[in-house]
């Protein structure tokens, strides 16, 4: 409004800023290994994590009060996680681990986070972003009904809270993670009506791709055996078209699909189910890296944005590294190697390792990584979302859940030549809500870029704006560093 009192960009004076050499966002496999490597070399590390304990989504630890009596149910990933967490435990005394903290912004060389009931500031020399990924949202008629849940949510409920999503469960999605989830539901005593695999997956076609990944192979066969033993139909080339019900899911329409995942309508049929688990893969959480100004590219196979990275996991912004599923969903094993590389590179850049030491270590991790990458390529190819997936929504299907924007409103804006996601946002409000477009962004990108005659083949990404996750006014108001 009136500008005359301004005096240029301000520096806070006389207030102590909490500082660390290396800040790591996220304590999943990538964040943990980065911390281990950097800390071993003598770097002062601070990890910020939204969860109560380290481990991330995959190695999620249990809240106090739970005792593990059937570790087998939790799967082999869980025991692998235990190994990693033990390794982390050895250096943990040297690491500052801030749990229950949500990073809501990156501002040059400091980040803002919510720590309990207050907002706080952390200055850093180096930053590793290891924010992981989230379940791909797929809009189809009825996808907003209670009872339609993403696979990650179901997995968390089953593993941590011991809650099954319903009594007649339909799994719809693609890729081997569906089998893991099915295995967990079966072990927890749940009843699965059917598992729909959208791809044309011949499980043996994996063999060349996962050659030498013996444990993965063994896991896979174990899951399949459980599913076969439970008599659950595993339908290849099938997707869910619609969910219906009065206030909650009561039935679901499914159909066989062609190689582009477009339904063959004569095969459409209805299943009586009370819950639907959607497992169409994961989308990288790239909002913080985007906010930090890192250059990104859109990866069709992932249906998401990933930061451009060099050999040592460094992004285009000096001092900022990105690792794990947030930089290209490739699973925990890749995340672990990437984390180790970034942690080592940071130690080198701060002068704690000699060039040769760092190079030698990174070379080993790179070797592991290249072996895994082959496997990932196969996974990418089979679970790549096909165009049919984005054609299920009808005119009245909600695409942006926060603002309740339908496909019709989006098509109207596209007809008026909306050229980018950000322009579409201003024209329709989609992506303006509390998730900042994490839910509708990937879908809108596919809808816009696939539309024939569209001006928006490269619609860009939603511009992230701090706070990237909701933070209450009193938390923001309570930052002791900025109150004087």
């Amino acid at each position: 409004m009136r500008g005359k009192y301004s005096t240029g960009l301000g520096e806070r004076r006389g207030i102590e800023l909490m500082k660390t050499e290396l800040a790591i966002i996220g304590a999943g496999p990538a964040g943990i290994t980065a911390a281990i490597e950097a800390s071993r070399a003598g770097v002062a590390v601070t990890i910020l994590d939204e969860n109560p304990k380290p481990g991330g989504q995959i190695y999620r630890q249990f809240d106090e009060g739970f005792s593990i009596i059937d570790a087998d149910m939790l799967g082999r990933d869980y025991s692998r996680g235990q190994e990693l967490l033990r390794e982390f435990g050895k250096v943990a005394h040297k690491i500052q681990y801030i749990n229950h903290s949500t990073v809501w912004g990156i501002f040059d060389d400091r980040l803002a986070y919510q720590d309990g009931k207050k907002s706080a500031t952390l200055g850093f020399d180096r930053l590793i972003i290891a924010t992981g990924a989230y379940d791909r949202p797929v809009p189809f008629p009825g996808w907003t009904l209670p009872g339609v849940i993403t696979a990650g949510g179901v997995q968390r409920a089953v593993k941590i809270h011991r809650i099954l999503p319903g009594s007649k469960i339909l799994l719809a999605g693609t890729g081997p993670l569906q089998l893991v989830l099915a295995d967990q539901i079966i072990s927890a005593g749940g009843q699965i009506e059917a598992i729909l695999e959208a791809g044309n997956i011949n499980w043996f076609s994996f063999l060349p791709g996962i050659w030498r990944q013996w444990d993965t192979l063994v896991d896979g066969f174990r899951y399949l055996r459980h599913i076969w033993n439970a008599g659950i139909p595993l339908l290849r080339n099938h997707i869910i078209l619609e969910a219906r019900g009065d206030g909650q899911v009561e039935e679901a329409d499914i159909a066989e699909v062609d190689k582009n995942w477009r339904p063959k309508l004569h095969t459409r049929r209805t299943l009586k189910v009370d819950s639907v688990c959607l497992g169409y893969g994961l989308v990288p959480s790239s909002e913080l890296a985007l906010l930090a100004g890192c250059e990104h590219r859109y990866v069709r196979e992932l249906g998401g944005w990933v930061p451009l990275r060099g050999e040592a996991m460094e992004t285009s912004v000096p001092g900022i590294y990105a690792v794990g599923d947030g930089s290209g969903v490739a699973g925990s094993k890749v995340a672990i190697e990437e984390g180790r590389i970034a942690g080592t590179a940071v130690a080198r850049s701060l002068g704690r390792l000699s060039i040769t030491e760092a190079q030698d270590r990174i070379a080993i991790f790179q070797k592991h990584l290249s072996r895994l990458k082959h496997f990932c390529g196969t996974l990418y190819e089979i679970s790549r979302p096909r165009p049919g997936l984005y054609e299920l929504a009808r005119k009245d299907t909600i695409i942006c859940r926060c603002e309740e924007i339908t496909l019709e409103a989006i098509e109207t804006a596209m007809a008026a030549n909306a050229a980018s996601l950000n322009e579409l946002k201003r024209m329709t409000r989609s992506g303006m809500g509390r998730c900042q477009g994490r839910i509708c962004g990937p879908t809108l990108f596919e809808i816009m870029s696939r539309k024939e005659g569209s001006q928006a083949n490269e619609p860009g990404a939603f511009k992230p704006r701090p706070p990237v996750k909701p933070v209450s006014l009193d938390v923001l108001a309570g930052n002791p560093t900025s109150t004087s």
Partner: protein
Amino acid sequence: MCWLGIQLRLHDLWVTDLGWNKKVGVVHMFPKEAEIVIIGGGVLGSSAAFFLAKAGRDVVVLERGDRGGEASAGNAAFVWSLTRRPGIDVRLAKHSLEIHQQLSKELGGIPEYRRCGALLVIDDEKQMPIVEAHLKARCADGFPLKMLDPKEARELEPLLTDRLLGAVYSPIDGCINPIYLVIELNKRAEELGAKFCYHTEVCDIELEDNKVKAVVTTKGKIKTNTIVNAAGSWARFIGGMVGVKIPIVPYQMQMIVTEQLPPVLSHVLMGASYMVDEYEKEELAQKEEAGFGCALVASQQLSGALLLGATWKDAGYDKRTTQEEVEAIARENLRFLPSLKHVNVIRSFANSFPFTSDDLPIMGYVDGVEGFIMAAGHCGHGICLGPGSGKLIQELICDGKTSLPLEELRLSRFH
């Protein structure tokens, strides 16, 4: 090589002269000439284009970005006259309020313009004499402003703190959805025949005998005799192209947006510190320490989201928000509206607003450059004054005179 050279040149021709859209494969003719070229597709340019197209004029709008990318789409959303000073300042605001009301009907209510009433909230004894003097002068001008005691203020806006000293109430002020306003104005102007060229940057303006002859853009040249400089914070660069110094500087303002709530605020609120010019030395020193000014601005959009602000500082064209300012805005708003403390903030934004040294816009013809019209520098009130200013520019071009004399707003006042 020679053959390749020709190929490249042909390609250039396609892209630049015809504006060939390679993605669609449809050829949109880039205009070769226009009666009027408006530079800037924000609220000023869009309003002027709408009224000119409505009057049957041939208008081309050149916009560097896309629809509503700058301050016109991200601001306090106020349509506000309460703090405007007596004279041309408040006359402009009053005129624009009337245009807003007509426009709202014409645009089918899409911009969500509401005269919900405004409160200027006083929380400091030092503000009182200044506010009272302002009130007296404005009431003498016939404005229906009213001083409320804390109890009356809280009856109107129950969430306000009980630590208020009072508030000034204006029934004619209100707010709007600035994004919808700009996008709808663009759409209607296009329907009326105006051409909008997005992603088109102006590189130069050609003059002949001090008369406007053509605009050179990144997509080609447009012959024209009339240019409207509605480039907001960037207006000075356009001025530079015709050798005119335009004293408009960008000031950054930051705001925050909350999650959607049921109706909790029925008025638009502003802290009295905004209009209290004379700070005590000590206070000014504190502000310098922080590096930015901060005062209350609050309103609730029809969506339910609260739009809260604001901080301002000299930051050039930087559109990033900062942690300090986001947190300062939260504190300032909780000071006045303490019961909002558990409300979630879902984003922040910053934009560059065009300011002049006397807090008045620069409007009208420019001496020495025939055909060059200014419509910029609305000092953070572009959304309020934009439609009115657009109408005045249309009158200036079509009738040679305006319903509100623009003499006091001309660029020559600075020279």
